[in-house]
């Protein structure tokens, strides 16, 4: 009896270790797989040329990824600039000011938003946001735009990332003990001062993680952005220009361009780039979080 319990105990801990190792090895496996697949391209082109060249002419064997990198990062940053303040303010309002039933009501709404497939957001972007940008917003800035633009991509992406980031922020603010607020108020702070100086600081590492995860997710989003951004391999000059994101490039072309040698290898390299950018962003956020926790 005791023996079997001990056995179960040791088996279960080994089993957990195996699962953990699997999780840890997965990114490594994916990374090395991508490197392997993009080797043919790397052998014929220099890394510098691949990353920083603007020339994307696959039929001439020129693969410059710079336009895709710029578009991907730009549209993601723009999306977060739109969604972060919205999420931050709504999560503060919902947890600190709103009556409890509002939060209760919002939870399923947020879950539903998070569950909508991205292609649906894409269709919505196509029907609503693209014309909005082309006919209304761009003229405001005295710009000509067809609507298929970074801004349209960013708006769709922002809306998609809101439930995701908001959920994490709600959790962050919910976990701050009420007593901390009472301590600050009792020192003579107003509610807003308490939120600004105490809650945001207390939640800073959680807030930063939410932004970091939001960034990774937005950077990798494919279909919805692909449907509204125009898919022109160029370096956009403004947010009203079209662009082409790395995930869009891969999704649109993988397996389609058999006639062009090293095209598939180039797409794998694109995926590798995406992977590396996400790893770098995560490291940067980890570092900032680490710094913020030191205080």
């Amino acid at each position: 009896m005791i023996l079997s319990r001990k056995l179960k105990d040791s088996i279960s801990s080994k089993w957990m270790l195996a699962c953990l190792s699997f999780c840890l090895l997965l990114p490594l496996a994916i990374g090395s797989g991508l490197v392997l697949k993009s080797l043919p391209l790397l052998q014929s082109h220099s890394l510098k040329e691949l990353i920083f060249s603007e020339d994307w002419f696959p039929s001439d064997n020129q693969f410059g990824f710079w336009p895709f990198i710029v578009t991907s990062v730009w549209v993601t940053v723009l999306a977060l600039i739109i969604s972060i303040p919205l999420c931050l303010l709504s999560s503060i309002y919902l947890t600190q000011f709103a009556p409890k039933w509002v939060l209760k009501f919002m939870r399923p709404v947020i879950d539903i938003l998070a569950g909508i497939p991205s292609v649906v957001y894409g269709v919505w972007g196509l029907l609503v946001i693209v014309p909005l940008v082309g006919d209304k917003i761009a003229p405001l800035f005295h710009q000509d735009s067809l609507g298929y633009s970074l801004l349209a991509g960013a708006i769709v992406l922002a809306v998609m990332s809101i439930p995701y980031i908001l959920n994490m922020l709600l959790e962050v603010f919910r976990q701050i003990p009420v007593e901390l607020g009472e301590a600050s108020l009792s020192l003579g702070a107003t509610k807003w001062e308490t939120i600004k100086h105490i809650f945001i600081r207390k939640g800073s590492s959680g807030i930063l993680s939410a932004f970091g995860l939001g960034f990774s997710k937005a950077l990798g989003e494919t279909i919805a952005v692909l449907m509204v951004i125009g898919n022109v391999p160029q370096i956009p000059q403004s947010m009203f220009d079209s662009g082409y994101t790395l995930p869009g490039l891969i999704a649109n072309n993988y397996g389609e361009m058999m006639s062009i040698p090293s095209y598939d290898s180039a797409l794998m390299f694109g995926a590798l780039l995406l992977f590396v950018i996400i790893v770098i962003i995560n490291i940067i956020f980890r570092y900032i979080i680490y710094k913020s926790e030191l205080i």
Partner: protein
Amino acid sequence: MPSTIELKQETEVKVESIPAHVPIVKIDKLNVYSKGTHILKDVSTVIPKNKITVLLGPSGCGKTTLLKCLNRLTDLYPDLKINGSIKIDGEDIFDAGRDITTIRQKMGLLLQRPYPLPMSIYDNIAYGLKLKGIRKKKIVNAKVEKHLKEVALWDEVKDRLKTSAQRLSIGQQQRLCLARGLAVEPEIILADEPSSALDPISSKVIDEEFLRLKSDYTIILVTHSLRQAKRLGDNIIFMYYGEIVESGPAEQVFENPQSKILQEYLRVGH
């Protein structure tokens, strides 16, 4: 901001001139309801200046709620319905139009567990000062030192003032919380079972602190420890199910309890 400091200083001068026997807090027919339940029932009492008044009673009897009414932290709970009056220095804190932040700065709050602000030891104390508009480095430095000494923490932390307050021991954190409350120069200290989470040594330090501080402050101490009540209390308010059952000077209440419930409580508590 500067105008509030001047105001504050004026009120302090006024308080100084009030003789010690004059009550600093006067609670009149205070009732607190939450949905179906009646949490505080017709609570009326006075709390004298420069004394330690102990709120004694079994848990759930409404001690914390009464304490939170005093600095209107009850505002945070929209479910609570409050009527009655609480006068501090003769002014009703429930009067519309009174500035709640200045009322709260008259009271330092110490909770069951320490909740240091998520910042350095130094900033924990400077925070309240900044809220009062005191920003001059020299003054802030001096006050940080003064109040850390006041709670016997200065020697332990003077070399690491800029490190996180979270890294202090629980006992040190609680003393820091006391110091940060004292730094806004309150008249009253509200303490809600402040040593219940502490080891015996830290809790003894806090007890001794209170005995020393009562010459300058009026202290309202919630406890369910009879021993602490006897050691510290000048006045005892015994509560049971939201009501004040008995109150008076400590000797009288402990030597000659009138009500059955208190007699029982004292007997069981021994």
